[in-house]
């Protein structure tokens, strides 16, 4: 079986969407060992596989094609060139993040899987999504949260047929979280100071709760706060902010290769996810009510206690048994919650183990297997 994946993510880059695309393609290759997986993305220059494997933490190779695309064409040149190349290649199944590609495939009688991570945007994107929806054919729509499914169904005033939809939150690659060192060992490996540590990993975009993290650092000077990730300019800005507040317990690492991220997460006794009520994604827009953050599954796989904002969409996965949930943007509540966790090692252990058990349901492999099941 030939699976053609088409995405607009820039690869390589540090965006979450590019990581998700790479993880999905690897999972497809693993889920269907007989399948040949090719990915088409925009770009002019090829990047060696070794570099991608390190940056994205992927092992199973698949073929990537970079297709030149001009901004003026608003990616429609990529859509057509990639689609045409995939057709010529003899794709049996299109796996895409673009409703336009799924629509073309279905119109040509080819099965399609469409991943939907947000409400369709752009001027004609929403209309084309509506057309995709109404287009008959063998298709499967992967929606990352129940909340997003409801949002789409409400917006389009329709119901997804159950056989065609899969609620597919983002996932985790469990292999990378096997045999993680203890927090102390991880800190030693990373050359970090040996004391209780709370880790935040991911970008430092608006809505990620960075101010709240600084507030926590002020409230708990005895705890190290490790921020792993972020674009260089954002890292510099928050470093300056921490310095100006006289905080010496905040350490910002900058961008961390995905392959090394588990070690950084393992270095914390507590993993933090202080989303605000409005979250900016790498592609803009507010995703607080529909998102499925990859870091949530990575945190769970790390087997550490998670302290997260209590958002309805987060509750689709996290609950009081596998995490501590605190109201978003409420520093006092977070101080209380973190204080409770810091004092109770046994509780941290219990929460971490439960999270690790629960996350087995959310592996990339499982997700891919379910997505491909109707077509294999």
């Amino acid at each position, binding site marked *: 079986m030939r699976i053609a994946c088409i995405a607009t993510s820039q690869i390589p880059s540090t965006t979450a969407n590019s990581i998700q695309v790479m993880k999905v393609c690897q999972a497809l290759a693993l889920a269907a060992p007989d399948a040949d997986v090719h990915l088409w993305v925009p770009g002019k220059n090829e990047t060696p596989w070794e570099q991608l494997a390190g940056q994205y933490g992927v092992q199973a190779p698949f073929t990537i094609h970079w297709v030149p695309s*001009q901004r003026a064409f608003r990616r429609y040149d990529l859509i057509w060139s990639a689609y*045409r190349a995939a057709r010529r290649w003899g794709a049996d199944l299109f796996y895409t993040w673009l409703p336009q590609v799924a629509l073309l495939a279905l119109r040509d009688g080819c099965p399609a899987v469409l991943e939907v991570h947000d409400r369709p945007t752009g001027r*004609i994107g*929403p209309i084309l999504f*509506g057309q995709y929806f109404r287009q008959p054919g063998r298709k499967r729509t992967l929606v990352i949260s129940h909340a997003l499914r409801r949002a789409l169904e409400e917006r389009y005033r329709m119901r997804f047929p159950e056989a065609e939809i899969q609620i597919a939150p983002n996932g985790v690659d469990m292999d990378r979280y096997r045999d993680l060192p203890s927090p102390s060992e991880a800190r030693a490996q990373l050359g970090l100071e040996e004391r209780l540590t709370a880790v935040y990993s991911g970008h430092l975009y608006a809505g990620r709760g960075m101010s709240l993290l600084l507030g926590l650092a002020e409230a708990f000077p005895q705890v190290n706060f490790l921020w792993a990730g972020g674009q260089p300019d954002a890292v510099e800005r928050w470093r300056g902010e921490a310095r100006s507040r006289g905080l010496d317990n905040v350490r910002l690492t900058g961008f961390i290769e995905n392959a090394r991220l588990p070690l950084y997460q393992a270095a914390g006794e507590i993993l933090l996810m202080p989303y605000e009520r409005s979250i900016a994604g790498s592609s803009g827009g507010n995703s607080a009510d529909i998102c499925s953050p990859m870091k949530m599954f990575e945190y769970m796989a790390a087997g550490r206690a998670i302290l997260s904002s209590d958002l309805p969409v987060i509750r689709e996965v996290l609950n009081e048994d596998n995490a501590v949930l605190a109201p978003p943007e409420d520093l006092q509540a977070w101080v209380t919650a973190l204080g409770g966790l810091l004092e109770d090692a046994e509780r941290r252990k219990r929460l971490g183990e439960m999270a690790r058990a629960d996350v087995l349901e959310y592996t990339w492999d499982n997700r891919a297997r379910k997505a491909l099941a109707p077509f294999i």
Partner: protein
Amino acid sequence: MSNPTAAMKNSRSWLLAGAAGLLLAAVMMLLGRPAGFSAGTLLLSLAAVLGLYAAWRWAGAERALGWMMAAAFVLRLAAGLGLAMALPVHGYDVEPSRAGYLFPDAYERDTLAWELASSGQPVWKAFGDEMRVDQYGGLLALSAAVYRYLSPDLHRPALIILLAAAVSALGLAFFWKALVPGPGEPSGWSREAALFGGWLYALYPENVLLGGAQMREPFILGLSAAAFWAVRAWPESRRPAVISLIAGLAGLAVISSRVAVIVVAVLLLWFWLEHGRVPQTAARRALLVGAGVVFAAGLTYYGAGWLSEAAGWDAVLTERSSGWVQLIVDTVGDRFRVPVVTLIGLTQPMLPGALIEPAAPLARWLSILRGAGWYFLIPLLLYAPFAALTARPEDRRAALGLAAISLVWVVVASYRAGGDMWDNPRYRTHLMVWTALLAGWAWSQARARRSAWLVRWYGVIGIFLVVTLRWYLSRYTAWKSSLSLIEFLALTAGLSALLLAGGWGWDRRRSRTGLRRGSRSPARPE
């Protein structure tokens, strides 16, 4: 004191119009699906015929206009009702066709309109549905209202066809009134231009097919004709013009806000062309240019993003459906994709393709008619700007402006919809009022000047058609003598250049000979 004979005549003519309305209702009830008595059909038929009759009288009650309006109305109705009967039997095996709709959009909207009408929800719900369907908005609401109040028992798609045909034909009254001055009114464009343009409006196949369908275009045409008249009549009949302008633009905004914005822009330009003067001082000229730039910037901000995205998608669809386009883009390079698709869009609907490509007989005949209509119009549009450049000074500005409006719009439609042989010609009709006038004016100019250039442009288009026909024949028949892209272009361009250069040389020679012999000067050159 009123003349009793005239009053009697007047009453009789209204009675006759009423009788025609009744006859139409009877025909509609016999031929419409479902057949049978319907009070709504009776009411709408009477309203349509009496409304058209009233409009005809208002526009001057000339016999030529009467024939034009009658032909437009009857042809549209016949096309709509005929296709609704023929398509389920002779059409393609796709849902819209099986249901008797030529245009998938019409099928989609009409089905939704009936759902909305029978749902008990308010009809204005139709305005909030862009996410679900792309056939949302005013026409959906109007159709739902018609079904709810005039046909609540059964879905009668013929009612919307009737309404569309009437509004489209009504536009002719405004078109005529704007161009042919009544007694005591200042002179307008030539009567010949109005006649030709009017008949083109009435008979142009794309207009006829759209006018007999549950589409936005017949309403856009009728409403923009009302606004067109308003601009023309502004100095003399200010109050009716204001009412007509507001009604036309409001209607357009409800039917299609995007088209309404375009029509407003065209009307502003049209107003200036018709009534404006070139400012005398540099400061005023700068002010005028500045205002134009600001308006254009606003228009670009409003529409450019949407236009380029939609154009991008349509370029994809064009390329997907045509190996010919793929070949050309592969040859010239990806970066020329949009210009190539736009150029190819200008050739749609492709007449030779319609003649040769395998298709069901009904679909073939429709394509042939649509292609023939477009290829009849192209030479007039090509000739018009040259005629405008050499027009009398007092006519030149308006003629050039008219040519610019029409030709730019043809290109924009082609950019927007590319090689889509349905959407692209459909978008062209949005400014059909101006295009028809331009074609009529070009025709009248060619005749007045006894110019051979219009014939030569027909020759150029003929060459293109013959060479393209040859390509289609080689592709679809046993005659294998295919031309490469370069050969195709070289042959078409070479023969066309020969014809045009030969014509130019011939005119010069004739002009010199004429001057030597002291005969009266030949027609003005183009």
